[in-house]
């Protein structure tokens, strides 16, 4: 079969454009392949049909997976049927890919040794992206912590007439005495302040910890 020797066409289906580009960038290391990124849900099947990929990589959180699998099942009648990539010789690698959050489909007859490097790379990129996201969440958390500390300092400055560096020194000393984190002391001060003085003025009520809170959208 001719296409096995030529350029491999890889479709990356991911509704997260950021992650898709991280994966595309990773796959660019592989020679002899052409990469197509599909982030749109609408017309997905038709789009995949036009691309005529040898390999499809799709994230496990993608709601279109069942639709795509149906298309692949029906495409078995076509010249280049696509099936789920299941390399029975290496269950561990597949478990790692499910763990990383990526699943793969390949055109019938493509040899596992051509697919594995691509899947391994995708897994590494998915994991890297997850770490990036975790780091970002962590950074957001730290930012929120800093805000809490700043607010607590302002309360101390106002209520006890301290200078900023004195307010901070006070927070730190208390934290050390109680073997707690500075942010925990700051949050305790904010809570106490709210109990004593009511919620801060503003158009909407502030969340006590100011940590997170996503908008709840109606289903």
């Amino acid at each position, binding site marked *: 079969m001719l296409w096995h020797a030529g350029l491999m066409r890889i479709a990356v289906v991911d509704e997260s454009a950021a992650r898709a580009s991280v994966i595309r960038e990773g796959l660019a290391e592989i020679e002899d392949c052409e990469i197509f990124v599909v982030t749109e*849900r609408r017309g997905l099947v038709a789009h995949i049909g036009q691309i005529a990929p040898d390999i499809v990589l799709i994230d*496990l*959180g*993608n*709601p*279109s*997976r*069942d*639709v795509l*699998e*149906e298309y692949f*099942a029906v495409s078995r009648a076509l010249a280049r049927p696509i*099936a*789920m990539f*299941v390399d*029975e010789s290496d*269950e561990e690698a*597949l*478990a790692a890919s*499910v*763990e990383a959050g990526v*699943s793969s489909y390949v055109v019938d007859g493509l040899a596992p040794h051509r697919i594995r490097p691509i899947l391994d790379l995708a897994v590494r990129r998915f994991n890297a992206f997850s770490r990036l996201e975790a780091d970002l969440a962590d950074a957001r958390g730290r930012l929120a912590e800093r805000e809490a500390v700043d607010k607590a300092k302002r309360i101390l400055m106002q209520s006890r007439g301290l200078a900023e560096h004195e307010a901070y020194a006070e927070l730190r000393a208390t934290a050390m005495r109680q073997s707690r984190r500075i942010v925990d002391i700051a949050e305790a001060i904010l809570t106490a302040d709210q109990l004593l003085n009511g919620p801060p003025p503003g158009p909407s009520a502030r969340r006590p910890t100011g940590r997170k809170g996503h908008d*709840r959208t*109606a*289903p």
Partner: protein
Amino acid sequence: MTQELAIGFLPLVDACLPILAHEHGFAEAEGLSLRLVRDVSWATVLDRLLYGQTDAAHLVAPLAIATTLGRGRPAKPLSVPFVLGLNGNAITLRSDLAAYVCPAGGLGDPAAVGAALAQVAHRRMASGRALRLGVVHRYSSHNYMLRYWLAACGLRPDQDVEIATIAPPFCADALEAGEVDGICVGEPWNSVAVERGVGTIVLATAQIWRRGVEKVLAWRESVMEERRPQAEALVRALVAAARHFIDPANWDANAALLARRAYLDASPEIIRRAISDRLLLRQGGEPVHYPDFMFQYREAANFPWVSQAQWLYTQMLRWEGGAFDSVEAARAGRVFRPDVYRAALIGSGEPLPGASSKVEGSLAGPMAVGTQQGLITMEPNHFFDGRIFDPAAMPAYLAGLP
């Protein structure tokens, strides 16, 4: 010591039993700690189950059989010790089409709606734009129930009517955009389409087969054998959850609980309607009560009847082609594990059927059946066209289907 079990699910009302077993402490009382893993496609629920990220999963019943038989991927044996429920799906059509094929005021009559739909389908064929209906998965009871109904009404699925797969959360969008003319899906997704004014519910699948198997609790066979005490404990916890689920006193609280973001992330009102067998058929109407729309507990509903697995197998053959193979039929039947269900509940107050297989669709009126323990009275379990499925005569059944 408490044993952790990870359980995969899709956000559908019939994922209720594992969620309630966890939330109300039924699992804990059995020494289990459940970790519920929410996904958005059956493909991913299955992947997580096959590659060990979950121990058991809420699954469309035919997919458990297809996976065991190696349809679409290399065979991996799954086991079903517990049926999570019967029926609970509906057929929703674009409102203009619904108004044409189904008189307003209640659910339609399956034969009458089917006959009217057949006329529309043939006209649409002639105009070159075939009628198109959506189901949630190739290997779903939705697909098989819809096809059963269409075929019995003189329509040839895939020829006279196109059948496409659509993810449940996008069913309403697809109706609105005119990508499909109707959908067969579970709750809350029919009601979401109705609330948005893009569809009208015309039939409940319970009208097609009064006691049709729907979602199951599936394990990898090897994992279930390794963790047999936990598998049996989970059956007991789920039975307790099922008993709680059908008690009207608990409907408000359970609807609110299932509606949470971590579970269905949907409207508690819509969920409450489904669990109380009520459906708002069209926007602005009044909810209609259709008894046993969902069927989660009575008549040993959770018992994995081998005959039900084999009925699904006959439908798989019917729509995918291939000759009847008695070895494969036996393998499909063995996916359902009444022996595990019995072992879990023997000596408890739960009624246990005496047989493991039955003739499906044969009961026209209530009938007390033989049991191993307790009393069971079965209510009518007919198919709307009056056909009867005898698992001892599968080739004849297949040959007699339209």
